[in-house]
Structure formats: C-alpha cells, structure tokens
C-alpha cells in the first residue's frame, strides 16, 4: 500500500444541510492537487451522491454519523472513503445497477452510476445492519498538463 502524502478525517451528522459542507470539505482538501474545474466537479458530485445515500438510505429512520476520510497520494491520486453505521445494503451488485432504487419519489436510482462514471473506481462494502463503506478513487491530471504521463 502506498503511503498518503496527506489525509483528513471528518465526522458529520446525517443532516441534509451537511451535503454541501461535505463537498466543500473534500474538494478544499483536494485543491492542493490543482484539479481542473471538471475534475473538481466530478469529485464533488461523487461525494455528494455517497453522502446523500448515507442520509436518505443508511439512516433513513433517524440520525447517525457519517465518517469521511480523504487521502491524497503522489501522482494526483485521491481516495475518498464515505462510511456509515446505518442499515447496510442487502445486495450490493443489485444496488449498483442503474435505475435501481429502494426509495420512490425523486430518487433516480442513479447515485452509484454517477459515482462510477465520475470516478476511476468505486468500491462498496456493506453489511446488513452494520453499515456501508463507499470508496471513491480518482486520479486527477490537474491544470498543469505537464503532469500527464
């Protein structure tokens, strides 16, 4: 395992007002990698999906804590882990299918699809009744094109 060059851990209540804060807190930490506007929007969006899922799904019956860990690696790699101690997901593979949602209303069932399409890799580990950990991995090239391989 590579050693991160910097790391922050955050712990938030599952209030919807914290969705915006989580985006700011993650993207401000990643700013040192000098991402492009598009890259920073991709990260903010994927984080927003994962944090929203903690609020609307994991802790749908009450309030809980959301744990976020951001790690920066050499070469522009960023890893964001979003963890909850909520209800867990019965069938992760099914949950990741586009349009699958266990909530009606205006949930589109596209949260995981957005994460997948905006990140290089999305890892989901979940245990029913225990909680869910979503890990988003993305390597940003940055605004300094000379960093490209």
């Amino acid at each position, binding site marked *: 395992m590579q050693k991160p060059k910097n790391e922050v851990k955050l712990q938030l209540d599952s209030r919807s007002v914290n969705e915006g804060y989580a985006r700011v807190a993650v993207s401000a930490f990643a700013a040192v990698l000098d991402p492009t506007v598009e890259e920073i929007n991709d990260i903010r969006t994927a984080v927003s999906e994962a944090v*929203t899922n903690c609020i609307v799904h994991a802790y749908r019956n009450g309030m809980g804590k959301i744990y976020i860990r951001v790690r920066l690696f050499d070469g522009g790699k960023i890893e964001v882990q979003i963890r909850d101690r909520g209800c867990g997901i019965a069938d992760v593979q099914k949950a990741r299918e586009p349009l699958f949602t266990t909530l009606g209303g*205006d949930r589109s069932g*596209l*949260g995981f*699809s957005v994460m997948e399409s905006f990140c290089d890799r999305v890892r989901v580990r979940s245990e029913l009744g225990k909680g869910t950990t979503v890990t988003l991995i993305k390597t940003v090239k940055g605004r300094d094109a000379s960093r490209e391989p």
Partner: protein
Amino acid sequence: MQVHIETEDAAAVCYLDGELDHHNAPSVREKIDEYAVGSTPKHIILDFGGVTFMDSSGIGLVMGRYKLLSAANCTLSVRNLSPHAYKVMRLAGLDALVTLQKRGEKGGKQYAKAEK
C-alpha cells in the same frame, strides 16, 4: 437555492440559482409544482444558468417534473446547463425525453422536442 419564475412568450421560465442537491431539491420542486398547478402553463423552461452544482438529485427533479407536466399536457425543456450539469443529465438519458440546451448554445424556443 433560489427559484424565480417569469413568463416568456407562451412559456414559464423557472430560473434556478445555487446548488441543486438532495437538500435543496425539495424547495425547488415545490415552487415549480405549485406554479404549474396554479397557472397551468403550456410550456415550462428550467433555466440552469445560475446552478453552480448538480448531482443526481437534479436528474430526479427534471424526471419528476417531466412526468408530472406530461400528464398535464405541459411541455418541459432545460436550458443554460453548465458542461457539468449537462454531463449528469446525459448520463441519465434525459436528452431522450427533454430538450437539453447547454450554456452559450443558441436555439430559439426550447420546448421543440417535447412538442413533437
């Protein structure tokens, strides 16, 4: 997130301002739906010119309005999308249902497709 609604020719234009996420979407939805029910316009245009962030909650918002308004014979279109918001909506295949116009993109009336 702010919404203000203006009429433009036969259409009602809803100007959205701010970050469109799960936290903010409900108030936007209520404003639009309330207007649609009260004023029964023939066309509704969602203007995303002021939207600084959007996640899949934006998809849900547009999809939900599309269903509701179709049932009421009102057409829907979306304009002034940032490259990012456009990317998110395309990912959802919303371009097959609703006319999506990017920022800086020309194109007269924006409710053409839904009228077909």
